[in-house]
């Protein structure tokens, strides 16, 4: 298989008069953790939504697993969809279903797997995201923000995806659950050999997880490289984002975990 899981070529996104992306190219390599950063309104989430086919770019192509997203036929697309998982910013758990039913839903939707194996797999996934079996019967409304993210992650992992999309994985979490969630993602990435694409504002998360950063500015990707290289690029957004006061503080982490970058 080729090395690039996702290939975006010449992508334009236009809303009315506003051009969000102009001739944007981006590759995601197998097994890496790619972070997409950019100022607000630069279309980071839109880009992820276009990758998974929730939105259509105005022009340009998105290729996932070598398949063109806009020309693939419906049944083919359904098969590809089972190969990725998405963690939404607010979790997007089905509020009418319990934690167990939420995670079991994608498995049950296959309609071919025996119930006992589904139950075993759900418990395995719960354990993977470090939740206890006692949480299985809780309703999403009874969960804390950190637990909602964990359940959502377990649901995203239910179909054993190769590719995982994370939209602001640590937004709205307190520092402690943020840290444990980041270490959870790192452990899962290592254990399951996932390719991860994430959007994040949180520099700590970025420095701790990312193998490459794609910087969105001026309507396209101005750099896609490891953090150390990106920091050296003289662009106003990069300077302000990485080398501001917030960036300096987060850089401390780099010294603690030099092996990541």
């Amino acid at each position, binding site marked *: 298989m080729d090395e690039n899981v996702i290939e975006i070529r010449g992508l334009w996104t236009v809303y009315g008069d506003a051009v969000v992306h102009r001739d944007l190219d981006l590759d995601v390599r197998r097994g890496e953790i790619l972070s997409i950063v950019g100022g607000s309104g630069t279309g980071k989430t839109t880009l992820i939504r276009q990758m998974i086919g929730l939105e259509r770019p105005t022009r340009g192509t998105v290729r996932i697993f070598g398949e063109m997203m806009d020309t693939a036929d419906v049944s083919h697309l359904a098969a590809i969809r089972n*190969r990725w998982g998405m963690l939404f910013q607010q979790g997007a758990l089905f509020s009418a279903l319990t934690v167990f039913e939420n995670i079991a839903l994608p498995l049950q939707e296959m*309609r*071919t797997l*025996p119930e006992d*194996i589904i139950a075993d797999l759900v418990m*395995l996934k719960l354990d993977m995201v470090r939740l206890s079996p006692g949480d*299985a019967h809780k309703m999403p*409304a009874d969960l804390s923000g950190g637990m909602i993210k964990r359940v959502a992650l377990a649901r995203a992992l239910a179909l054993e995806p190769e590719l995982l999309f994370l939209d602001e994985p640590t937004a709205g979490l307190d520092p402690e659950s943020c840290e444990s969630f980041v270490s959870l993602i790192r452990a899962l990435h290592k254990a399951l050999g996932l390719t991860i694409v994430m959007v994040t504002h949180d520099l700590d998360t970025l420095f701790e997880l990312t193998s490459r950063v794609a910087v969105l500015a001026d309507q396209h990707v101005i750099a896609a490289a490891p953090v150390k290289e990106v920091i050296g690029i003289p662009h106003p957004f990069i300077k302000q984002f990485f080398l501001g006061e917030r960036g300096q503080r987060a850089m401390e982490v780099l010294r603690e975990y030099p092996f990541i970058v």
Partner: protein
Amino acid sequence: MALQEAPFRGILLASMHHAMPQLVRDTGDRGTTFRAGGDWIVQTLSVRGRIDALQAEANADHVAPEQASWDLSGITRIDHLGAQFFWNLWGRRRPARLTLGRGQEAFFDRLHHLGDLRVPEAPRQHFAWVIALGIGLFGFLDHVIGFIRLIGQLVLDIVRLLRNPRRGPWTEISAGVFHAGAQALGITALVGFLIGVVLSYLSSQQLRLFGADIYIVNILGLSIIRELGPLLAAILVAGRSGSAITAQLGVMRVTEELDALLVMGIPHGFRLILPRVLALGLAMPLVVVWTDAMALVGGMVSAKITLGLSYSFFIDTLPNVVKPANIWIGVCKGGVFGMLIGLTACHYGLRIEPNTSSLGQGTTASVVTAITIVILADAVFAILFKNVGI
């Protein structure tokens, strides 16, 4: 004995990139050996019938699968579904003779580490029906108390409005009158007209038997103005505006807008409930008059066709046979019904919990309860005014 490629239904396309999972059984002198190959992943195992076929193959010769030797080194790709399948086959432990390929160790380690973790049973309750009865009873009491409290709050808010009318939520009230009144004119006109036609047609059939044709005016006038008009309008408004109010307040609960209002020191009663209840109380009498008029027109048209009663006769006779008191009773009913619908809708709207099913149930309960309360109130009106206007 390999599992042959059968023309499986299901996701054939997915299988193009994957090798189908295979399980080969060798029965030698030293016992049974299973050799597995192919891809043991969700995409290949979820093909219809696949898991059953593999299970049947593993259990084919009366040897318990965990007693056999297993060689999984031929498997190209495995995921947790595949690993779990083997694990369950082996009775949830590692068989004595097992050969694993590269990278497979981790999956079975994880399962081994997980141990015999089962889904905890939801706690079972004895005397469930007693508990259900109790919950139902207390729930009902809770609703009654909540409703009485809501009425009390509304009275206090009305007093507050009368004391300082300039600071009242007039924009909201006028918007409410527009939504519940002006926008309901079309549907109430249609339903009113058709009911008038049907009622007039059926009554005229009977009246003609007795030669009492002209009494059609009495029957239509009294029943529509006193009973049917207000009731029809109330049912339609409960369905339109009651459900809208409940859903609106419910979504405000879900999005924490209700809490935001409280934090800003803006009370729900004065800003949300009062304008809605007052708007319905104002709009409903008007809708009732409109519905009455449309139903009478429908009845008149039908009477002209079936009985040959002229329009001028109908219009001349109407004021003589229907006392003005009936109109006042009808209009008052409209106002009361409107406020009851508004109160019920707000009551249920504020009780919605932040999840999707509660929103659906709350809206349904709101409309059903509003209609029930309206009919109960109608019965009370009938008893109170039994000597008036007839």
